[in-house]
């Protein structure tokens, strides 16, 4: 019997609540906002939240993966910017598919550089990714002459398709039909959201169900043990950085394509949210603990929070403050939880019982 399983009903329910804390936080935000914010609980607004969360989701998945492997990647934001800029800049020459492929490949190249510097040159990942963030961001500023790159010929066709309903005219709601079913079809199941959700599902399957995915947890949990058990530590670290920057660049390209413009601010603005969401989602800075689903749920929760505050008429400043406060409260809670749990484990009632039984 594990110490966790023992204890009162209260302790067991606390454990259960702790396990699902991100979901509870998300539900609480939706509940409170739905109750107090006007126009929050409407299908169109929910679609906005899904769309907003999807913007940073690929980069958040990448950031989670690198954190799981016990490293830090500050350059996910600049990879997003690079993806968006390259896909817009190259589309006239290469077409959308070619430009998207080059953008993702450029992201992978950035990740490869990060990974090689961290694993082979053994430089701290905080330093390396801080440096590449600076280099890539400024390179993109030169590429775009310090401004934004619009879609070729101001063409919004692709942008409309990415944000339109995926199922086509067959299931399209009739005019005047504005219920939840219609909203699902027209607003939520867009190609843009599909891609984000598919990425999330793929990351979840790989991390949970494949030996390669479990390797990332092993590596982050204890690098030495991972090496002893024959894991290619350098390979995993390089892989984590390549995937992280690659999916971030891909995500940035998707954002740029659906907004029909590549902008310098995308990555800069997203980095703060991404870090906050991944940490709130329960991924540990020490590595080896966390999940991409947690990050995604936390991202939705944070987006819902800012969206609800917008509905209440609060400005950007209250948004900034409240997401900072939520992050601060969550990590304070984690520290208190750790303390309580250690004390609880220190009592070891079950161990005591076993000892007395063996003596008597």
């Amino acid at each position, binding site marked *: 019997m594990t110490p966790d399983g023992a204890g009162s009903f209260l302790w067991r329910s606390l454990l259960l609540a702790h396990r699902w804390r991100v979901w509870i936080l998300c539900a609480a935000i939706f509940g409170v906002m739905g109750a107090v914010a006007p126009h929050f609980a409407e299908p169109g607004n929910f679609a906005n939240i899904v769309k907003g969360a999807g913007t940073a989701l690929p980069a958040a998945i990448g950031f989670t993966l690198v954190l799981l492997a016990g490293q830090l990647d500050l350059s996910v934001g600049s990879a997003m910017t690079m993806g968006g800029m390259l896909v817009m800049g190259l589309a006239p020459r290469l077409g959308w598919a070619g430009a998207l492929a080059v953008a993702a490949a450029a992201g992978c190249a950035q990740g490869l550089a990060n990974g090689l*510097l961290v694993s082979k*040159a*053994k*430089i*701290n990942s*905080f*330093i*390396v990714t*801080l*440096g*590449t*963030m*600076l*280099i890539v*961001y*400024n*390179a993109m*500023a*030169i590429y775009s002459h*310090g401004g934004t790159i619009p879609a070729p010929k101001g063409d919004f066709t692709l942008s409309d398709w990415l944000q339109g309903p995926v199922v086509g005219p067959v299931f399209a709601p009739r005019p005047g039909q504005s219920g939840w079913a219609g909203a699902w079809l027209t607003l939520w199941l867009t190609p843009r959201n599909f891609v984000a959700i598919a990425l999330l599902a793929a990351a979840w399957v790989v991390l949970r169900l494949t030996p390669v995915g479990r390797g990332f947890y092993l590596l982050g949990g204890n690098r030495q043990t991972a090496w002893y058990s024959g894991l290619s530590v350098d390979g995993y670290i390089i892989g984590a950085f390549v995937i992280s920057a690659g999916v971030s660049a891909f995500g940035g390209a998707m954002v740029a394509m659906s907004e029909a413009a590549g902008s310098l601010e995308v990555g800069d603005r997203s980095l*703060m949210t991404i*870090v*906050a969401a991944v*940490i709130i989602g329960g991924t540990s*800075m020490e590595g080896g603990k966390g999940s991409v689903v947690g990050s995604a749920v936390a991202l939705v929760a944070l987006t819902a929070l800012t969206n609800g505050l917008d509905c209440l008429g609060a*400005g*950007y*400043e*209250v*948004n*900034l*403050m*409240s*997401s*900072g*406060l939520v*992050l*601060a409260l969550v*990590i*304070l809670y984690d*520290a208190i939880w750790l303390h309580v749990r250690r004390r609880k484990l220190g009592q070891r009632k079950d161990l005591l019982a076993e000892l007395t039984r063996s003596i008597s």
Partner: protein
Amino acid sequence: MTEPPMIHTVPPPPPPDGRMPASNRFVGVLNVLGVYILVAALFAIGPLVSPAKFLTELNLLSALQSVALMGIVAMGVAFITYSRHYVDLSIPGIMAISGVVAVWALKFGFAASMLAGLAAGAAVGVVNGLVVGYLRLNPIIWTLAVASVLSGLIRWVYSGQQLYPDERTSAGWEFLNLYNCQILGKPLLPAIVLVVAAVAAHLLMHHTAYGASLKLTGSNYEAARLSGIPVRRVVGLTFVISSVTSAAAGILLTSFNKVGAEYVGKGYDFMAVTAVVLGGMTLAGGRGNVIGVLGGVIAIALMTNVMSLMRIPPLHIGPWAFGEITIGTFWQNIIQGAIFILVVGINSLSLRKAGRDDS
């Protein structure tokens, strides 16, 4: 019963520790001089790049002034890095709030304004120190959250407006002239504050009991705790020290900008940690010194200065013709980023060669 005769010869004792002797002379030289090699190289390149301008008093003074504020911040950040807590990401928020509070307090007089600004910054530092030092929260995440809260708070209180000092009052006029006030006929105040901060930081870090406990705490937290050092207080204090230097820099920067606003100080956290790490202080903690950090600050100043003076004359290579090339801000940042990674890489390589890599 007699002892059996010893038939095995005793093997030679292993060296006292497993470290390789620092036999590589190149690496040894690198370790001692560190970033000052880069500084010397830049001094050598400078006159080649611009014979007329580089070695003039005006140019070197402006190079120094451009990094004085970042240097002041770096002196405080050095303590956090030394204690193995990376960096305080709430520095931009601390700089902004101390500037805003100083401008607000101008109605109580100039001295009160300075004190209020420093106190506001220090208050944030105390909170950070309590939470990171005593509750042991991750410094990067906690200070990131604080930065976000501070930035929102300042915008919210002043509803997005900027705060201008009133130059009709004497205190306001003094505040506006603080950054450019004439000492020995030159606007030297930021540079003097930097030198004072550097000397104070050097004495505190290398010549006091606190500095010694900090070194042990940064090198090995658990060993320091077990040997009775009040590790929580030692770590907490580093955040207070850093917040005071950031507040001083924030007040000066607000005086330079002539406006108190939320965006004052943006980017100073990363710039300062760049200088600290460039100066040979590793993120693994307990290694490096203030003189090195000062070298890092000077290196960044000279690097920016040399690059902005650089003019590559028009070239004709075969069929290609290049116009005059100058290095713009974006390129300067790219080169700085590359040099940053390179220098830290060489530093960690030399530590590894000497068998002293503990990161």
